[in-house]
């Protein structure tokens, strides 16, 4: 009996409450910037501290080795670090793209400004990979038309900078004009499309590489450029890089 009274009471309460049921009448949205005006929570800092100490030790772990300094300014229109970056991105990115589409990337293009630090001769550590590529840029493959390829070549030639390109792409400048443009040993064909590997940043018009905007097709590899660098470094005992004249001025 007691149980039933309890149940009855509960139902009465429920009914009473339902009459006063709350309804949504207003929504407000805002965004709070997390910046240096905000004091840090000490408990969080205490939890992070030992990890940070340990990280300092581990980030100095050696991934590979280089006999010579690698930088972006040791050539005229190419550089040791630029060639390495463009080639390793291709080597790491192409299998991902191939698995996705069954096709191969034609070549890769990055920007000179994207090389953020040199790698001095000696052991190459995790730290170097993070300094070389501190951004969270991801690899993307764009399918561009022969017309856009013209714009790309024109951009590289006019920039007169060692923008990194992979070994599959060769440009010779003669009398201040693109003279010979080769892709994988074949003469550039303006009647076909090309698959170009680059970063999401550049695809989005970064460094004014407008020819990557609105491509015929775009494939996001969801692979961080830095991830590709680290994965490649881990595979190599010693980094071997040469200046091979992939982008040069000829007489």
């Amino acid at each position, binding site marked *: 009996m007691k149980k039933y009274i309890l149940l009855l009471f509960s139902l009465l309460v429920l009914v009473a409450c339902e009459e006063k*049921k709350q*309804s949504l009448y207003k929504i*407000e*949205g805002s965004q709070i*910037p997390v910046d240096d005006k905000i004091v840090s929570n000490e408990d969080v800092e205490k939890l992070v501290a030992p990890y940070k100490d340990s990280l300092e030790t581990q980030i100095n772990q050696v991934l590979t080795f280089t006999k010579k300094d690698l930088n972006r300014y040791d050539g005229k229109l190419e550089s040791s670090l630029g060639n390495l970056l463009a080639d390793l991105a291709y080597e790491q990115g192409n299998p991902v793209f191939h698995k996705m589409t069954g096709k191969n990337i034609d070549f890769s293009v990055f920007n000179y400004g994207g090389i953020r630090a040199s790698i001095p001769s000696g052991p190459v550590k995790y730290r170097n990979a993070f300094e070389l590529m501190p951004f969270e840029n991801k690899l993307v493959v764009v399918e561009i038309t022969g017309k856009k390829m013209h714009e790309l070549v024109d951009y590289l030639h006019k920039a007169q900078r060692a923008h990194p390109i992979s070994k599959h792409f060769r440009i010779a400048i003669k009398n201040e004009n693109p003279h010979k443009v080769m892709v994988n040993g074949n003469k550039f064909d303006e009647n076909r499309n090309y698959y170009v590997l680059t970063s999401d940043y550049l695809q989005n018009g970064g460094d004014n590489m407008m020819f990557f905007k609105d491509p015929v097709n*775009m494939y996001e590899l969801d692979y961080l450029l830095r991830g590709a660098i680290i994965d490649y470094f881990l595979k190599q005992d010693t980094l071997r890089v040469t200046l091979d004249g992939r982008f040069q001025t000829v007489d």
Partner: protein
Amino acid sequence: MKRRDFLKNTAAASTLLTLGGLSLQSFTEDYSTKITILHTNDTHSHIEPFEASHSKYANKGGVARRATIVEQLRKENPNTLLLDAGDIFQGTPFFNFFGGELEFKLMSMLKYDASTLGNHDFDNGIGGLYKQLPHAKFPFVISNYDFTNTVMDTHTNLYKIFIKNGIKIGVFGLGIELKGLVDPKNYKETKYLDPIGVAQDMSRILKEEQKCDLVICLSHLGYSYDVNKDKVCDLHIAEQTKDIDLIIGGHTHTFLPKPTVVKNSAGKDVLVNQVGCYGINLGKIDFYFDTDKNKVSTSTVINV
């Protein structure tokens, strides 16, 4: 007979339990509740603030600062939920060296109420994610990944219901298609289910069966796609479902100046929000509830 008794007892007890959440004030004339939803997405292991020399995000972000804000806002309004839309992992050496342990410990310290999963949360494989679960004192909600035959089976929820001051809040989660984004050896036998169908089911269950007052979708599908316009995204989910009040998005690292308001399939407004990435911002959506008597108009006012 005994079974009937049991059922009655259970009914009475659960009624009381449900009412336990309501204070005496719930029977006064001006009963109202504010539900605050705080959210992050794509924090990507960014535990410390960006350095002062950083070209884009100098001095921004930092979990210790986020903790201060969250603590303050919870003090102001205890009816607060803190949610994340995935990609907790990958982006700083903290992940590369500790596999996400610190990220989960910190989210637990900040008392996250729930999170969904992003593609990068599979970066150390499904086993790498599973290994870190003991450090997460919050539930993972993901409604369109079938983890049968994987180590994650039974460790995630299709949805979670929270009750704050009598307001019932249902939260479900949508993950992006892993095929093509994540190496199959990393997600193993995880099955991806159509997010639109799942979202329709989940919102119906939460609204009609569970009688939720608010339905929130944590999504890692991405805000929208310029090139692949047909690729399923948060805006599509908003348009092709009903009964979702808020979609908290991620994946595309979209910095929205303000939440986007989209009309759903029933012509009602849905809010879609995303706060960029790396813990640079904390999203805050306040839902104001009142008794019908105090309601000024029949439609909900949105100030964003």
